[in-house]
């Protein structure tokens, strides 16, 4: 029973926390650029505003276009129930391991790409093709990085990882360092951050994710935006589970939840700072350089796996 309570609590945390996390990143960014901020809660206001607006549908929009926002949002909520963010004691965690989780995200991405092409505008198609190119490069690297972690924890279940890393002996593992490096690069690409994509731009030539959802409005746009924030949040959560799982509550331990929540907030704040540092330090790269960027992610992930075999 406690499991279900934690489950619900965690989904709520993700739903509420994701906009705050994005708000935190934006606020920090404003500070580094000496601009005045819109406040950490601004993403809520954006989403709320969009929910109040009418939906404008293109004449030739098919069911895919209307269905996609719900699917994408649903996938994010489902993933929020699987990834151990607060506690490893999640009933849903048994339904999907980390590979299935990546497949879930792939489904969402696939439908967004379809929806981007559905209307038939040039931008949508361009965005979709770029997104799929990035996906085709990022996903193998992602799997490699995940495999490395799975090798160490001897399981592809995310709930198993904290058992080995956080509750076991502390060992310096070069493989983990490589996998982490790869994971950071992939997360930047997957969640459309600089240097791969710029979430704040609507420049025709450079946008990727924004190009695909250019035709969305109102409630649909709100759902997609929200799901996008959750995706960033969830990828960060996966990273935390896999590489810094200290503090995540073990099973059957309700008392550890408050501490886990507190640590989670700190970890996310730190990660947010890291993202801002990366984004202010780097410029967006040309789309054709992305293959090299993700190539190095793949390299790191493979090196991680190799050094697991070679050195550990």
């Amino acid at each position: 029973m406690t499991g279900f309570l934690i489950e619900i609590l965690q989904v709520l945390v993700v739903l509420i926390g994701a906009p705050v996390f994005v708000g935190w990143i934006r606020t920090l960014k404003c500070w580094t650029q000496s601009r005045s901020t819109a406040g950490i809660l601004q993403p809520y206001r954006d989403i709320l505003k969009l929910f109040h607006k009418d939906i404008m549908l293109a004449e030739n929009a098919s069911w895919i276009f209307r269905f996609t926002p719900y699917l994408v949002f649903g996938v994010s909520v489902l993933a929020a129930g699987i990834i151990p963010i607060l506690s490893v004691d999640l009933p849903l965690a048994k339904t999907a391991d980390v590979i299935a989780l990546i497949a879930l995200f792939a489904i969402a991405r696939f439908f967004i790409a379809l929806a981007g092409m559905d209307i038939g505008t040039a931008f949508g198609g361009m965005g979709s093709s770029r997104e799929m190119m990035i996906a085709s490069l990022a996903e193998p690297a992602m799997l490699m990085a995940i495999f490395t972690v799975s090798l160490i924890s001897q399981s592809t279940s995310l709930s198993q990882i904290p058992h080995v890393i956080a509750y076991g002996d502390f060992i310096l593992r070069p493989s983990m360092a490589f996998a982490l490096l790869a994971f950071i690069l992939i997360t930047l690409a997957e969640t459309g951050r600089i240097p791969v994509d710029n979430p704040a731009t609507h420049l025709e030539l450079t946008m990727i994710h924004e190009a695909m959802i250019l035709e969305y409005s109102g409630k649909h746009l709100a759902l997609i935006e929200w799901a996008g924030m959750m995706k960033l949040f969830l990828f960060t959560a996966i990273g935390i589970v896999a590489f810094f799982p200290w503090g995540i509550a073990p099973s059957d331990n309700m008392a550890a939840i408050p501490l886990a929540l507190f640590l989670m907030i700190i970890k996310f704040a730190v990660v947010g700072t890291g993202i801002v540092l990366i984004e202010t330090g780097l410029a967006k790269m040309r789309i054709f350089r992305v293959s090299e960027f993700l190539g190095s992610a793949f390299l790191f992930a493979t090196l991680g796996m190799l050094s697991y075999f070679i050195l550990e």
Partner: protein
Amino acid sequence: MNLAAQINSVMAALILLTSFGLLVQRRMYALLHIFAWQGLFLSISTAIVGYVSGTHHLYISSVLTLVLKVILLPYILHILIIRLQIHKEVETTINVPTTMLIGIALVIFSYHLTSPIRELSTLVTRSTIAVALATVMLGLLMMITRKHAVTQIIGFLSMENGLFFAATSATYGMPLVVELGVGLDILIAAFIFGIFFFQIRTTFDGLDVDQMAKLKEED
């Protein structure tokens, strides 16, 4: 695994990483820095192994590496590339993804090749010998793929790093006289390639070794 061995394998991982960095880095200055880092990791690793095994001559070898590979050679190369005015040069002909894939294959190959040694050895460093061979192989790959005289030399020196690392991890270092002799040879080699750069520079139009393709079997 005790802590020292863990640190040593982290160093091994870093050496491997720097090898890949050298392989795909296009900018001359950055290459030089990565090379110096590789030397530093090697030196630290040698010192750690010396500490763990109680082999004191490894300290000398570590200092030798530090002086030669971290300070002297990068400094000489630095002076050279400034004198030759190539410090801003960027190599554009590298195919990064393919090179990386070949590199990864080489690492696996080295792992496979060194497995008999790993099984026989009782040293704590036995696992790093695959990395050592991989460093040698990656240096070799770098010499093959790069077309610039200076980068080829950096590849060569990185191979030497791999060899030192191999000696340390397989046997706790070669006898001192051999290590000193090898160091001396590298130093002489450094002077020779220094002279070479200027010869190539004055005779050809820059340091691209692709221009040197006259000596072939003509039909």
